[in-house]
């Protein structure tokens, strides 16, 4: 079995909000466990407000988690001393959604790529130049792009620079936060292509944060579905897409339009919108919106229960009724034998 390069257990992030004497708690991330192996792509999906970006930021202490442990290549991540965290950033790098705002507009591509080499690897100028050329080639840019500024590049080229910068220090794992959502579809394919090639060559682990289900299906080996700060379903991508178990996953997958003529999807509807994550009671997060909810759903927060090999869902209704009747396409019989 391949080595786990990034893992988190019991990850939580709470924010105290409200005026003095009227403190309330906003739960952005609630008890998240995850692992990413070398050469594996794990997708973290969810809608806005689900906490997926906060998870990414907690993993690298861009946001200080309230509780939980993060390990990189088996070593616990500590925020202090700063040097320890700097060491972590050699192994874990991030690629952000908007390359317009994540690249310094006053630095040339050369300077942007040389900076991490200088800071993390302390390479000399000559070595830096060689590595910068190597990186530019790896991400499909030309050496004459080196003296350009970000505004002189297209969106796709800028994202290539963002990826090259992340790869510069030879990380074990890269966290990609919506890396293609600001790009045109034709460029999206090229960037995913690039990421797949780099992963094969370097055996990097990817944690891929996205709301684009077409992308998840195409690139992820495993998928984690987040709703209101918690993971409600996880499993191999094929299994989750073929047999989504949790009502939220079913609603999410059935809402995504597919670019094919004559495909009639059977929608699984939830009512209302994602509620406020402030002062949530200890119950299933979906309780007010779910058509399958039973009284038990309001009693305690359901844990993730295995429903297939590596596949688990946090829904007491869907995971405890072995004789439940089929519910149309996308429905799954709990505990059903895997293919």
């Amino acid at each position: 079995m391949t080595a786990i390069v990034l893992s988190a257990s019991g990850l939580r992030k709470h924010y105290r909000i409200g005026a003095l004497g009227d403190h309330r708690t906003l739960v952005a991330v609630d008890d998240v466990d995850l692992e990413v192996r070398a050469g594996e792509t794990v997708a973290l999906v969810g809608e806005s407000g689900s906490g997926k970006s906060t998870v990414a930021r907690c993993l690298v202490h861009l946001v200080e988690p309230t509780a939980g442990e993060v390990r990189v290549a088996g070593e616990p991540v500590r925020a202090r001393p700063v040097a320890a965290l700097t060491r972590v950033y050699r192994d874990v790098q991030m690629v952000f959604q908007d390359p317009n705002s994540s690249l310094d507009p006053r630095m040339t591509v050369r300077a942007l790529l040389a900076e991490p080499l200088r800071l993390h690897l302390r390479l000399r100028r000559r070595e830096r130049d060689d590595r910068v050329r190597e990186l530019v080639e790896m991400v499909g840019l030309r050496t004459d792009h080196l003296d350009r500024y970000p505004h002189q590049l297209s969106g796709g080229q800028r994202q290539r620079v963002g990826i090259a910068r992340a790869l510069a220090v030879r990380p074990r794992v890269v966290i990609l936060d919506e890396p293609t959502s600001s790009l045109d579809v034709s460029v999206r394919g090229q960037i995913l292509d690039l990421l797949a090639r780099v992963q094969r060559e370097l055996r990097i682990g990817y944690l891929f944060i996205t709301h684009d289900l077409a992308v998840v299906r195409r690139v992820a080996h495993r998928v984690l579905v987040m709703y209101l700060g918690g993971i409600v379903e996880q499993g191999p991508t094929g299994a989750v897409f073929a047999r989504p178990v949790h009502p939220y996953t079913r609603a999410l997958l059935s809402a995504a339009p597919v670019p094919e003529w004559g495909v009639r999807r059977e929608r699984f509807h939830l009512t209302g919108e994602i509620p406020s994550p402030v002062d949530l009671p200890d119950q299933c997060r979906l309780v007010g919106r779910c058509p399958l909810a039973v009284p038990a759903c309001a009693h305690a927060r359901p844990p993730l229960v295995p429903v297939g090999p590596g596949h688990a869902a946090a829904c007491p209704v869907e995971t405890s009724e072995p004789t439940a009747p089929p519910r149309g396409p996308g429905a799954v019989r709990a505990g059903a034998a895997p293919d």
Partner: protein
Amino acid sequence: MSGASLRVEGLTGHFRTRRGAVPVLDDVSFTARAGQVTAIVGETGSGKSLTALSILRIAPPEFVVERGRVLLDEVDLLTLPERRMRAVRGARVSMVFQDARAALNPVLPVGRQLADVCRLHRPVNRRDAEKAAVEALAAVQIPDAARRARQYPHEFSGGMAQRALIAMALICEPEVVVFDEPTTGLDVTIQAEIMALIGTLTAGGLTALLITHDLGVVAETCAAVVVMRDGRVVEEASTEDVFTRPRHPYTAELLAASRLVEGSLA
């Protein structure tokens, strides 16, 4: 709501810049039929949004139309005097913009903003206009519309704000509504609801023009598709034809990219 078809003919124009004219639209022609959603698809810089803005004559001032016509009931909107165009805009042809919360005025209650549009075009008093605003909000399935009308845009979620903007576009019962990326930035579950709403409106006779880059949305809700690239229309066909028998290689490329076809990734 009775629709009228909208026909764009030979629309050609350029941007005036310090370095001279930059051509951006080249002989753009298509028809949006009543009671249907017609999609204009294309990538960044294809000219799809500029085409939409030109229909309402609200393109940036640097954009110069060289020739072409925008026909609504045989009347060329491009030749109307501005005063008469103002009577068309919002009343007969209206527009829904991409970022709903940015399109709404943050310092006025949402209902008031809808009522203002109503009063601009109709001889109604404030109270009747506010009543019409509440009805318009209810018509786009905003729950508790009377209370919502008194709220400010920041109290609306993205999906609710988009519904309110659609209500604003519909309050004067226009024949044509141009939707410019109405679901970009919204979650898929909310997107599905907004598209279902647009489908219901066209079933009632409305002519809808949907500017989008999302071919999934097109496949599900549109009857016809106009594919644009570099300021030109490369293909205009029924949705079925575009998805099953694309004639232009660019259309086929765009489809392959949207589907993330096996093999397109090494």
